[in-house]
């Protein structure tokens, strides 16, 4: 199923589409205000991009430096080539700890690896503790946004879900009271948690520490109450120095939500005495993406979600229309690396307006990569055959002046002469479902020009 088909389903509820668009635009506007307030913001983007580019160019070395530093801190370091190995490692650590209850803070990587269902199949209770993640976990839905996982839901939906799962009053939809109910419910889970899983925003090669940024405090609470902390990170989370965090912490929250910084920027380097800390370093297609020169810059991503908030397509089609863990523009350039056939329509789910590129805090050339993925997909025959052959035909027509002129005359004449009902039939013409076709003029520009006196003398052929 293509993005367009899933988007059309989302669009059926026009009011909800308006609400979704406006809610995310509100986040984009908060981001703008935060960005305008930092005079050096564009310079910071350039620095962040440079630091990430440098890191990718020495990635194997920084990974080893990080591993050695983490091990010196008393941390167990694990390596997972793919999602299956990542999941197996985490299950193994959990079992060795004799634990059955896991509290988890937000980690897109564990979503990508489908860790929760795997652990539950093996008899482990996993509780997502980020409020948005908990909401969608109750509903058995994937996140629709990487920073705002439940942004596709209205407060009434959350109220219904909490009524079912937490026993809140039926019809209660006040965000304050619903959040309080979740706080009470999750406090009990934190207190009972044996193993805490967290994601990683940044992994510092020189210190071996991982940095986790949250607003709710759920990572800190989970990790510091449990006996075992497992931090799961993609290989691209590495940054060289502690001081580089000055750049990234100034960019991340401003880009994500318009906050000057996340409430908690927590540095985990060593386990508390008597406790365990593990770091699982995951590839899962990332080294392959590193080997694609046109697309490796996608690995600079710090998962702020700004490209989603600004994307006019995402805001009107919802995160689920992408059918990939990371939706939106960045998801559309990450997903074909994972499964080109399945995600073939995503690079086309864009007007290439370029707003994603311009909000990206690490300057990923997102819209250029979308364009380039289209070429890769075209070459691999992963675009609809009708499109492919009509483009081939167009290529021949437009490379020849004569054929082009005749085709244009014919089309305009047809538009003028055929009845509106036929030229605008939705089944024949996707344009005309919501739009009128242009009124076809009797004469093209070139036909007009040919009759002008200026048309006659061609310029002298001396080179310019």
């Amino acid at each position, binding site marked *: 199923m293509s993005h367009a088909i899933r988007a059309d389903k989302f669009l059926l509820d026009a009011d909800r589409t308006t609400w979704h668009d406006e*809610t995310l635009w509100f986040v984009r506007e908060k981001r703008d205000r935060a960005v305008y307030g930092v005079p*050096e913001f564009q310079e910071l983007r*350039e620095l962040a991009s*440079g*630091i990430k*580019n*440098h890191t*990718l*160019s020495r*990635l*194997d070395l920084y*990974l080893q430096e990080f591993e050695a530093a983490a091990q010196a*801190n008393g941390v167990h370091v*694990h*390596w*997972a*080539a793919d999602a299956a190995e990542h999941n197996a490692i985490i299950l193994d650590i959990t079992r060795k700890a004799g634990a059955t209850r896991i509290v988890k803070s937000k980690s897109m990587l564990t979503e990508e690896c489908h860790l929760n269902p795997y652990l539950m199949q093996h008899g482990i209770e996993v509780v997502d*503790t*980020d*409020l948005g993640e908990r909401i969608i976990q109750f509903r058995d839905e994937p996140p629709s946004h990487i920073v705002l996982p*439940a942004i596709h839901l209205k*407060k009434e939906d*959350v109220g219904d879900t909490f009524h079912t799962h937490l026993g809140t009053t039926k019809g209660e939809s006040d*965000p304050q009271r619903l*959040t309080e109910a979740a*706080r009470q419910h999750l*406090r009990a889970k*934190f*207190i009972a948690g044996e193993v805490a899983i967290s994601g990683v925003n940044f992994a510092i090669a020189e*210190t071996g*520490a991982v940095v986790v940024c949250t*607003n709710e*405090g*759920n990572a*800190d*609470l989970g990790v510091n*109450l449990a006996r075992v902390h497992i931090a799961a990170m993609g*290989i691209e989370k590495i940054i*060289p120095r*502690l*001081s*580089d965090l*000055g*750049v990234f912490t*100034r960019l991340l929250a401003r880009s994500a*939500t318009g906050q*000057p*910084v996340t*409430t*908690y920027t*927590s*540095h*985990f*380097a*060593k386990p*508390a005495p008597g406790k365990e800390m593990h770091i699982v*370093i995951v*590839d899962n297609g990332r*080294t392959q993406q590193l*080997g694609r020169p046109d697309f490796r810059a996608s690995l600079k991503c710090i998962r702020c979600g700004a490209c989603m908030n600004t994307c006019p397509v995402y805001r009107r089609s919802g995160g689920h229309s992408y059918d990939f863990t990371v939706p939106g523009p960045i998801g559309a350039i990450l997903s074909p690396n994972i499964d080109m056939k399945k995600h073939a329509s995503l690079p086309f789910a864009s007007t290439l307006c370029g707003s994603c590129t311009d909000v990206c805090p690490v300057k990923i050339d997102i819209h250029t990569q979308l364009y380039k993925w289209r070429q890769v997909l075209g070459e691999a025959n992963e675009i609809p055959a009708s499109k492919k052959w009509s483009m081939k035909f167009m290529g021949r027509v437009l490379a020849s002046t004569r054929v082009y002129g005749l085709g244009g005359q014919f089309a305009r004449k047809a538009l003028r002469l055929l009845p509106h009902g036929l030229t605008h039939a939705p089944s024949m013409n996707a344009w005309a479902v919501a739009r009128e076709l242009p009124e076809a003029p009797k004469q093209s520009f070139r036909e007009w020009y040919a009759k002008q006196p200026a048309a006659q003398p061609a310029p002298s052929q001396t080179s310019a």
Partner: protein
Amino acid sequence: MSTTSRERILAAAKANKPAELPLPTVPDFGGEATVERFTTVLAGIGGTVVRMGGPEELEATLQQLFPEARHVASPLFRGTVPVDRETPTSILAEIDLAVLPGEIGVAENGCVWLPEANMLHRALPTITQHLALVLDQRRIVATMHQAYAQLPDTGGYGKFVAGPSKTADIEQSLVIGAHGARSLVVLLY
């Protein structure tokens, strides 16, 4: 086998990485390191600054701000609950107020650096219902660059705390008091 995966990942990263690119130098961007800026920004993210004449006014100030706090933990004075790193979760979960010394304040975003050594227990700053951080106003810097420049290292655990715990996960409505402290006050002297 993870040993194999380790070698495979490192070999692939080495083979697929681009030619080496330079590591940029990050300048100190300067900026405004004032109490006023810190106070305004912290208020904007749901926290509060209370000025004190000096650290000796701490207990009187707390008495005024938190007259109802019964379970109070602090390394700065004799609280009602003694906390150390062995304190069981059940005791921590009852704490109303933790009063901890902060090390560095950042004017651009209202955050305060809190190292493990100042926390009594790693979970205390988040599990407490209310958090008060005591900060010498001379330790306010302008930006995160300057804050990191002042940190020799981040120890076993440490964090920047910017205001109270919050969430906007329901319809982007801001709610203060998600999982961590419901309020945050910085006591500046």
